[in-house]
Each structure stands twice: as C-alpha cells, then as structure tokens.
C-alpha cells in the first residue's frame, strides 16, 4: 500500500470520477447561504470544481433567484435529490435535473427521517441501480455501512458518499471508524459528505484516505463564508498531502528524533 502511495507525485494527484480528472478534492454545496451573490466568491475561494445543489431549490421561474446563474462556466454540476423519500422520487428528480440541462451527474439523497435527515440505504440502492442503467454518474449519499456500500459498488455507483455525522450538525467525523472501513474495503472513491463542521475535520478525513469531502453548512453558516471556503480548500489539500506523504506510526511513548545508537545503523 505504502509503495503505491509513494509512487504518486502530489503535483499530478487527481481524482477520477465519471471519466473526469478532478484536481480539487473539495466538493461544495450551495444551500443555506445568505445570498446568491456570495456564492461565486465562495466557490472561487474553495477551488471546488464539483458543486452540488438541490434540484428542488432551483428557481426556474425567477432568473435572479436561480442559483445556476451564479455558478462559474466550468463547474461540474452535481444536482442532488433532496426532498425524495423513495427511490422512485429520487429517480424522477434526477431525470428532471438532466432534462433541465444539469448534466448526468447526480447525488442520490433519499431521506425518510426528517429529524436527523439520515439517508435510507435501501431506497438509495434501488435508485442507484435504476439511474446507473439510465447512464447517470451516480454518487449515493449513504449511512456508512459496508454491506450497503458493496452493493452500491456492484450497482455501478461512481463513488460512495458516507456521512460523517447528520447533515448540518457540524459534529465532524462521528462515524470515523465505519468510514475507515469503507476506505479500506471499497475500491471506489469514498467522499465524506455531511457533518464536517471544521477545516481540521476535513483534513482528518483526507489524512485517513478519503478521496474527497463535501462541505456546505460549515461554509454557508460561517461568520465569513469566503474565508471559511479558503480554509477548507487549504485543509483538504493539506490532509491529502499528509495522506500521500505517508504519516509515521503513532506510538504511546516518545521516540527521540536523533537516537544515541543511530550510528550503529549507518554502516
């Protein structure tokens, strides 16, 4: 494992999803901001290439209210199916998004629990199977469960998006161990979505080997969203670099940087 990592040149590091090589490993959401006008500045500071938005919040009737008119030209749109409670509704929203010209990427979000907004893995799998058949690049948002993730992989998902903690909770990586297992066992990119509240938590996810993170609430509700977007940009890049560099082992006791008997090894 370590040898493979060492062979990656960080300056050539990229993430391949749906046939696209992404340079940025920070995905950003467009909800919860205080105005649409701030969104382009946030996106620029974040360096994000993939931007998610809820199709149900796209205002097609009022051009100044339509979030799509505030996104840079080269953005990869990741419409999400927020509001869907069943696989069928998610599929319908994905088709509407495609018909509206939002491309063929979709983040499946099927939620039947309005208190914690936890995803329904079963319905998510059904929607993934259907939309993959229809040619979508499917990124399912899910509760980090290895069995479900394997089935999503078999169904043809392009990446897996496990939650760190409930959406908007800013609680960080509460599901850390489960996500670590997904990173180890699933060959698809693992993108930590939801719950990341601070740049340090994004860095932590990246150091663990997550392929990317998706952040919305932590940026949108920050005192200064533009600075926070930049902070996440740096944290994700730093975490990724730390992962590629191959961190040293953790030990319980101190190990001197210049050991006294080091000369014995130098021969």
């Amino acid at each position, binding site marked *: 494992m370590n040898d493979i990592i060492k062979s990656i040149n960080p300056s050539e590091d990229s993430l391949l999803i749906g046939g696209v090589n992404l340079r940025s490993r920070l995905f950003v959401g467009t909800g*919860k901001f205080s105005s649409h006008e701030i969104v382009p500045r946030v996106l620029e500071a974040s360096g994000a290439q993939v931007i998610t938005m809820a199709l*149900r919040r796209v*205002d097609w009737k009022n051009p100044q*209210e339509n979030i799509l008119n505030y996104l840079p030209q080269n953005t990869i749109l990741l419409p999400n199916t927020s*509001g869907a409670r069943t696989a*069928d509704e998610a599929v319908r929203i994905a088709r*509407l998004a495609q018909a509206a010209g939002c491309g063929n990427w979709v983040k499946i979000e099927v939620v*039947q629990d*309005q208190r914690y907004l936890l995803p329904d893995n079963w319905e998510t799998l059904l929607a993934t199977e259907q939309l993959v058949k229809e040619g979508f690049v499917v990124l399912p948002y899910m509760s980090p469960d290895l069995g479900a993730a394997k089935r999503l992989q078999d169904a043809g998902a392009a990446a897996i998006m496990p939650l760190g903690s409930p959406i*908007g909770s800013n609680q960080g990586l509460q599901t850390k161990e489960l996500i670590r297992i997904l990173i180890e066992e699933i060959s698809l990119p693992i993108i930590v979505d939801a719950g990341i509240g601070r740049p340090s938590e994004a860095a932590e996810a990246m150091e663990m080997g997550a392929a990317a993170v998706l952040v919305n609430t932590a940026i949108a509700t920050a005192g200064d969203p533009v600075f926070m977007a930049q902070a996440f940009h740096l944290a994700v890049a730093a975490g990724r670099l730390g992962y590629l560099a191959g961190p040293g082992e953790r030990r319980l006791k101190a190990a001197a940087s210049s050991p006294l008997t080091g000369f014995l090894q130098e021969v």
Partner: protein
Amino acid sequence: MFYDQITEWQHRLPESSWASYSGVDVERVLAREILRPQDLAVLLSPAALAYLEPMAKKAQAITLRNFGHTIGLFTPLYLANFCTNQCVYCSFHAGNKITRCKLTLEQIIKEGEAISSSGLQHLLLLTGESRAQSGPAYMEKCVRVLRPMFASLGLEVYPLSTEEYQRLFEAGVDSVTLFQETYDEVSYAEVHPAGPKRDYHYRLEAPDRACEAGISSVNIGALLGLSDWRRDAFYSALHADYLQKNYPGVEVSISVPRLRPYAGSFKSSAAPVTDEALVQIILAYRLFLPRAGLTLSTRESPQMRENLLPLGITRLSAGSLTSVGGYSETDNVGSNQFEISDDRSVPDVVRMIRAKGYLPAFCDWVNMRAENAVGL
C-alpha cells in the same frame, strides 16, 4: 393518538406549576442538547422571561445549522368563504353578515396567474367549512387547475377524511395546514358553539389522517390568545413532536398565529399574547423542535416580522390577501377573514428579508406526484 398525551399532561401541568420553575431550571434546560416535554414547560414558564436573550442566541444558532439563511415564501389564496361554523373569533362565522362567494375555476386561474406573476411558487389554498359550497370535489378541481402554475400547493381547510386527503394528495396537494385553535377542550367548546367544527377529536386527529394519506408536509398550531397561551403553546409543540416521531417522513411545521381584530365583537377572556410572550413561544418551539419549520403570517406587523425573523422563523407569507378573489380583482370580492398587519408587496418583503441577511426562497419543492405538476 396524541389525545393520550394531552390527557397525560393535563395532570402534570396544573395551573400553579408555571410559577414553580426558577432561573436555575431554565439554565439547566439551556445546557441540554435534546429537550424533553418537561424542559419545554420550563421554557414557557415565567422564569424563562429573564433568559430570552440566551434562548434567542441558541435558537438562532440551531436554526442556521438546520435551515441556513433561507426563508421560504408562500401566499394564501382564499377560494371560498361560505361557512357553517360559528367560531366566535372569526369573520367567516356563519352568523356574520358578510359578502359570501366562491371562485369559479376561471377566476381561480386568473388569481393563480396574478400570484404566479409575482414570482411566488408556494400557494396555500383556503376555504371556509361548507361541504355544500366548497367540498373536497371542488378543492380537487381547484388543485388540478393550479397545479401546473406552482411548485407546491398547500391546503388550509376544514378537517377531511383519510380518503379525501388521499384523493387530494393524488391530485397534487403537497401540504396540509390545520390549526387546532386551542387544545383546551373546555375553551374549544366555548369558542365553537355550533357547526361541524365542534368535534374537537376529529380536528385533533386530522394531521394524522393527512400523514397517513401520504401528504409530505403538515403545519399545525394554536390560535394563541384564545385560551391560556402557555398551555396551548406547550401542547402545540408536543403535537408537532408527536407527529415527527410517528411520521418520520413528514416535514412538520408549526405556526404562531395571534388573535387578530376581525369583523365581530369577540373578546377573549384569556390573557393576551404580548410581544414578549410571542418571542418566548417562538424560542421555546425552536429549542424543543430543532428541525421543525416555523411559519409566520402577515397577521404580524412589518416591524414585528422583521424582528422575529432571526429568532428561528423559516417560512413567511408575503403579499397576502385574506379576501376571496382579491389578487386579480375579480368582480366578486368577498370579505376579509381577518385584518392583515403586514400589507407590503412581495418585492418589499423580499427586500426586508435580504436586508436582514437572509435569502428569500420562492421555490424549495418539486411535486413528483401529480400528473400535471410543474415540468421544467
């Protein structure tokens, strides 16, 4: 059913207990992450009045985390004001001599177009309680003609049966708004002396029926000031909590209507809901129900609405008219249901929301059910 909880708390919430809470109790509740019903009672007690500022700070933070800076906009459309009830606080009261009318489908299309041209895409349809004049079949026709014009259609009408809710859901209704008015059975009987609305239980269980019928969003509330507002606020929040727990897929919202002047002479014997009390209620709702929508109507003045907005409100009505046929000025304009306090235009309300640092959302829903729902 929720009535069991009302009965249970009836004995645990005696009149005198509100005064038994102290500042220490409030501080203990403010330190909690997840609140229980007994904590809600503490927040509604007189002791909490000294803690409105820390409550407001916490309420605002919770709202931002859960809903961001977004304020959903909707407007009511009165379809008909025929009514067989005698609610003593309402202008549509069967005994009041007011202009009665109901809109024809042609007029409804005109009204819908007038509203739609203002940019609003969430519409709430209202009628008085008259199965003869504005029955479920009439509502269904109205829903079908309005469906293609709006992102979501809500229904604020008298309680219906599960089958009726089901039919209306299939026709394209997304949400149901229904206020219990008061949860106190004795007061309820006093202010509803005659008409089908006298049936307290049929009304209380209507949100359950709507949820069972597949409706994805329900909005409840008490008409604050009809009876003891502390008890009504307590039961309203407990009712919302009950609905959230029993129907996890349903978005539950709660409204905070205060009694308004109207064409009649009703004076409630209960203590009035002061501005301070209204703030306390909104904050208690938000802290107890972090994920519930909180709806504020044009019953409140512009100044009040601006100040209440950052405390946890997630939905505002805008450009509201409470008369039948008011938007497109058709010839048969019926009387108002109540006087609105905020008569500003939609652009003015939008400007106010932006000035407060919030984003007005004209659209946050896609109907995926009805055949003729908004395509893109």
